[in-house]
Every structure is written in C-alpha cells, then in structure tokens.
C-alpha cells in the first residue's frame, strides 16, 4: 500500500487521469468521492498570487466541502441553465510533479488544459492545478484542489460553469 514516502509519480498520474475521465464523463458524484470530507476547491481571481486566501481576497470559486457538494448537485439539474444541455469537456493533464512529501500528505502540481464546447463554441481553460492529497484507508484523496489559471480573466470564456 502506497504511503506519502513511497508513492510514485505514475500512481499519482493514474489518479489524476481517473479524475479527468470522471469529469469528462460527468460522473460527478464519483468525482466528489475523490475528495476528503474536509476538502476545499479553489479558483483564485487571475490578478491574485497563487497563495492568496479566499477569506481576504475575491476568488472565482472558493468551495468548502458543503458548497462543493452543492455545486455538483446543481450541475446535475436541468435548471443549471449554463450547463443544460451539457457542454462537452476534455481535461488534459500533464507535467505532473510530486513537489513535497509530508508525514501524512503529498503536494502535487500538474498543468492542465480543459476544453469546453457548447453551442459550437470551444473555450480553453489553461493553468496549473495544485493538490494537497492525503491517504485515507490506503486510498489517495484530495484535501485541497487549487486551480491557478494562466489567463488574464475569463476572456472570452465568460464563466467557470464546469469543474476544472
């Protein structure tokens, strides 16, 4: 069983590729199960530093576990108009690096490119995902996912109605 000390980059990549597959197939409840019960999901505004705090700065998204659950619930409704009919997405994950190994967690960075297509318009979201991951009952789980966009605002994407 893997531990923070000996987990390999390939094992982490497999986990991130599975996460991407779940998102692209809209298996959102399964995706939610990849997160710990105290997890956070953050997308800072693009004029903030990557380490900014959502308690003192305006983000695009700053979900605790409860809001993240509500976000998933919302996205599965027909009344989530921005994503009904659903868009097509493709999450590409690359440049995966284990940056730190702690006693009970690892810190991982991965470059991402997410394509979203709806009504014949394709938008690209590009940036770096920073994960704090822990081991729960031998399984890797996400405690924090922070998406740092390499963009100047959401121009022309206009929204982050999908999960990055």
């Amino acid at each position, binding site marked *: 069983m893997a531990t923070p000390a000996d987990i390999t980059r390939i094992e982490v990549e497999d986990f991130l590729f599975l996460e991407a597959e779940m998102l692209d197939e809209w298996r959102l409840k399964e995706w939610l199960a990849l997160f710990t019960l105290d997890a956070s999901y953050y997308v800072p505004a693009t*004029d*903030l530093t990557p380490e900014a705090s959502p308690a003192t700065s*305006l983000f*695009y998204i700053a979900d605790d576990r409860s809001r993240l659950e*509500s976000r998933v619930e*919302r996205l599965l*409704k027909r009344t989530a108009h921005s994503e009904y009919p659903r868009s097509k997405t493709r999450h590409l994950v690359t440049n995966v690096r284990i940056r730190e190994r702690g006693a009970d967690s690892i810190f991982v960075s991965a470059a991402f490119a997410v394509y979203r297509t709806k009504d014949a318009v394709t938008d690209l979201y590009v940036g770096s995902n920073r994960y704090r991951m822990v081991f729960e009952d031998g399984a890797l789980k996400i405690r924090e996912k922070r998406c740092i966009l390499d963009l100047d*605002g959401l121009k022309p994407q*206009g929204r*982050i109605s999908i999960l990055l």
Partner: protein
Amino acid sequence: MAGQSLQDTIRVDTARNLYKVARRNFVAQEILEAERERIFDRCWLYLGHASEIPQPGDFLTRVVAGRPIVFSRDKDGALHALLNTCPHRGAQVVRERQGNAKSFQCFYHGWTFAQDGKLRGQPGKESYDADFNRDGDADMLPVPRFEIYRDFAFVSFDRGASSLPEYLAGAAEYLDILADQSEVGMVIVGGTQEYAIRANWKLLTENSIDGYHAATTHATYLDYLKGAAGNLAKVPFSGVGRDLGNGHAVVEYRAPWGRPVAQWIPLWGEDGKREIEGIHARLCERFGKERGDRIALNSRNLLIFPNLIINDVMAVTVRTFYPSAPDMMQVSAWAIAPSEESDWARKYRLFSFLEFLGPGGFATPDDVEALEQCQRGFQNLREAPWNDISKGMGREQPSFDDEIQMRAFWSSWHARINTPADTSGEG
C-alpha cells in the same frame, strides 16, 4: 450615420402601457458607433475606488471606454487620472497592472514623469530648447474630466459635461447609502473578477437590475438557499423599482438572504447574531431608525447610467463593462466592504458573494447563459424585431420585479443616442 436607424429604436405606447425596444439596438454596428460617440464619450464613467490606491505613489492601470488610463496617487496624496500614452511618441508609459512608484518612465526613449503626469526629464535634454515644455504639452495628459464622489472616482471624456453630482442625480443618495455602511471608509477587496460575455453590453445593464428573472433563471441558487440549513431569514421578497433620473435606476427590496450589513441568518450563529445586530444598531444610532433599517435590511441593485452596477445584496459588488463588438462585452467586477468589518464578517461576505455572484458562482453563470441566448435569439430580428419591457408600466409605484428600471435606462439611452455631438454645447 443613418439618422433614420437611430430614431425607431424604442416604441412607447402610453395609452396601452406598452414599451418596446428594437432588437437591432443589440446587434447593429452603427448603433455601437453611435453609443461610442454619444454615450461613452460623453457620460461620466467609473474609473475606480480611492481605496484601491491608498498610499502615495500607488497606481493602477485600467481601460475605460477603450482608453488605457493610469489612476495614481501623488506624493501629497492627491488622485489623478492620466491618459496612458507617452506625449513623446505614444507608447503606453505604465505597463504594470498596479504598483507603487516614485515616477513613471516610458521605456521606449526614457522620458520620466511624476505621478501627476508632469514631465520630470528626458535623455538628451540639451538637444531641446530651454522652454521645451513651457505649455505642458510634454506632460502626460490628464483625462478631460475627473471627479470623485464618496471615494468613487469617475472620468468623462466630454470637457463640457455637467458636474458629477449633477450627473448622478438621484443615484448619489444610493452611493451615500453604501458609503455610510462604514465609519472610516469602504474598501475594494483584493481580487478582480474579469470576464467576457458574448452578448451586447446593454443586456447586462438590464440583467443586473432585473428583479423578475430570479425565480426561473436562478432556480438552482434558490434551491441551494432553501436546502442549506439556516441560510434564510424569514423575510419574503418585496420592494420597489425607481427611476433615479438621467438614466439611473434602482430596485430596492427586502430579500431573505443574509446581509453582512446587516441582516442576520441562523447559519451565522449566536456570535454572528451579536455582531450583525451591533452593526444594525450602530447604523440606527448614526442615522435614525428609519434610515438605519433601510441601509441594513434593504437590498439594492443600482444602475448608474450607462454601465456602472452596484449591487448591495448578500454582499456588495461593483461591476462595469464595455462593448468590444455589438455581440461581445468585457466585464470587470469587484467586492467592496467596510474597511473596519471583522475578519469573520469579511470571510462570510466573500463566501456569500461567491455563492451567487461572479462567473464561478451558483447564479451568474446562468445570467451569462441567458444573455448569450438572447443574443442568439436576436438573429431572428428581421421577423421578430422587438423586445418588451412593459411590466408594471400602468402602476403608480412599480414593484421590484417590474421593469421600470429598464425603461429608465432605455428612455435616457434613446434621448442621448439622438443628440448629435455638435448640439451638445461642448467647447
């Protein structure tokens, strides 16, 4: 300019209480050109908030009506709005988004300017006449008009524009209501939400002050509020829409969501209750019960014509937007808060903001979708040429979910768009 095309832009039938807006107004290139000349080049436009550049030497750069502007504070603390172009050969002098500097240097040939735009020096000075800058024409130019109301800084590119308070008309009172929420000054919280919407800019003006669309467009947000325990006060939606003059308008209403200034919801707990009630009580002490209640308990969606929105709802957002094409707008939005509020209140304010507002919230993405769907629907305009904004037109006091706000905007828009530049009295 085809004069004919600017005339049949709205149709008002007061006998039947009908108000129609031509969909062409959202689509036609010549309408956008008329708006640039007769609205954006003449009205007072929001530049920024004094709290964004608090220290001497602070500056930020921003685009207002297509012009790159430097908003700066000089060594004596005075605020300036400069055209961000070198008087020498045109390059943008300041290229950072924001910062603090003793002077600005154009990197092209090295001309240097003070924070108020005055030329400090240029390499090879001996090659110029001694009185080279006698008339100040080698200084960075200020915007033609620059005024501040309660820390909200506005510019106008029309030298002959009326004063800012005169322009603000009935909207000034609503800036007071916001500014009075702090005893030491409101502050823009760090972080800008910037996004583009593939829709005409006027659709966002309408949408931002529309009390009618929430039940269907924001069904999932309302589900969320109802679903989470303690997220709602026992307050039904009720209120009014008002025409504030000069195209400005507001909806002012009670709503069940929590307000950091100052309507408590059970989710915030007993400690939160003490804090929120303290804020409310202090407002009543400062302004009397009636006005104190109004500031604390009412929500307000305010439009300052043509494109400044200040929505004082479950948090406060300041939002402005410009067309880059008839079917594309560029939006910037900020959060504003009393600078003295507690860490707890600031955190809940920002979380409440994000639950509803902004391109990653539970509501704004559906507004973006609605606006883009309108723009697509307008492709039918030859056969289906008119929008309807008649709701509540026959009422003496229109409700918050009527459409008087849109009519106030469009009537002013129509008057301005039909006022050519040469009759504006500009010197």
